[in-house]
């Protein structure tokens, strides 16, 4: 069974997470400086989430955005990634993550997400999302 069964929970969890990253870490300034934006397309549940250095959008507002990087994966894969339980090269090689956008920009993104890992765990506890995956 998929970890996420409530799209609203995802929305709340990530609104908090991105707001913190954008306002309180290097993520915001670096994303703005590099003019970088990411569209996350997830399945199970179906969610479109667009993030740049200014904020986050969901649903149709996100879907129509022209992002520099698009990353497609299942909700379970998203969950494992933020819990640092995902073997990234394995997920890419096995096509569990499909990405579109310049590889150097994708690589730039990864370290900027690091401060988000503990926040995500906090969010999981707050919304009772299982972490023993």
């Amino acid at each position, binding site marked *: 069974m998929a970890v996420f069964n409530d799209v609203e929970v995802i929305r709340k969890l990530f609104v908090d997470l991105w707001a913190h990253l954008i306002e309180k870490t290097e993520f915001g300034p670096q994303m703005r400086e590099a003019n970088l934006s990411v569209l996350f*397309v*997830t*399945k199970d549940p179906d969610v479109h989430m667009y993030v740049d250095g200014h904020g986050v959008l969901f649903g149709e507002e996100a879907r129509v955005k022209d992002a520099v990087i*698009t990353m*497609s*994966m*299942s909700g379970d*894969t998203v969950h494992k990634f933020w819990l640092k339980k995902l*073997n*990234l*090269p*394995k997920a*890419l*090689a*096995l*096509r569990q*993550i*499909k*990405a*579109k*956008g*310049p*590889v*150097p*920009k*994708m*690589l*730039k993104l*990864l*370290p*900027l997400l690091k401060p988000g890992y503990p926040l995500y765990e906090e969010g999981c506890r707050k919304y009772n999302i299982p972490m023993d995956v």
Partner: protein
Amino acid sequence: MDYFDINLQLTEEDIELRNAARKFAEEVMRPIARQLDLMSPDEVVAPGSPMWTFLRKAYELGYHKTLLPEVYGGLGLAPMQIHLINEELAWGSFGLSILLGVCAFPFFAACLTGDEALIEEFVIPFCSCTDASIRGCWAITEPEHGCDYLAYEDFFRSPKIRGNVQARLEGDEWVISGQKSAWVSGGSIATHALLFCQIDPSQGMAGGGICVCSLDREGTSKGKPLRKMGQRDLNQGEIFFDGVRIPKHYMFCEPDFYPQMLEMILSSANAAMGIFATGCARAAFEEAFQYAKERIQGGVPIIQHRSVRQRLFDMFAKVETCRALSRAVMNLNFNVSPPLPEYSLVAKTRCTQMCFEVAHEAVQILGGNGLTEEYLTEKLFRDARAALIEDGANEALSAAGGHIIGQVCPRSRADVFEP
């Protein structure tokens, strides 16, 4: 010689990057490559060899880190910019461009893992290196296995085929033993390797693993550099492992996704070979073009002979085709993850073939002069010939490509982009 770029979207930055690489290729790479070509393999890698001058200057200018992201100290270039620079470098020397490419290979692969420990230990020091003291190599090829590494044949999973380099896990360490063949590019001088080894022999060549490791560990030794027909400026040589121990986390890929990771890495390498072949093809065309304008036969420059003009145009067309194809594939496969291997195979097989045809025709236009070491064309021809086999013989790669398109063609956008 300059060329007109049919891509009218290049930015000023793109053009500056290309011009700087061209200057380096012309003033540093080409003269050094010609010197190295006339030396013995031992002399090429000896202290004081001009190869070291080339490497130090390349590292000073940051050309060793064109593939690496800015966040770790790399140049953070767009795929088109990577192409522009590497075509110029390969115009300067096919072999030295490959050397620079493999110098980066273990570190580029470590980068893709996203593993903080590997990035800290390997990637960041490589990016900050300016004296060429950190040099990688791609240790895949083995004495008994070249095309056995292509994951599309039945024998790939046969336990009857045993890898020449084996790794077994002992506690928190991998223990590596065996031999890589003399075809390891940069192997003679490398300080680090992107090492492919067999972990689970019951799965045959599919039971492999990939690790990043330094080559100063106890039990590591190297053979003599190989003497070969072309790309003599690119040192290649054996590496031996006798119970070499590495920390467990260095092995970032194990058999559960080894075939797919192998495919990803081959896709990067094959796309790069398409770019290098473009640079070499352009160099050969330019040599023949210039010669044809100067060489007088029948009382006129030979470019005025109809047959020569026609052949020069065919060469020009092949260079343009190589550039268009290798750029398109670079733009595709450095913009989608995982890459689409069939297109990298198209770039490698077609561009190296056209490069060889252009270099062959250049020799023909130069006539007897094309056969002599006095003219660069002779070297370019030998370099181009090597590329038909290097990184996978084109026939074997085409067979692999045929297998892939049989499975996936036509790809849908959903297959490439949707979860």
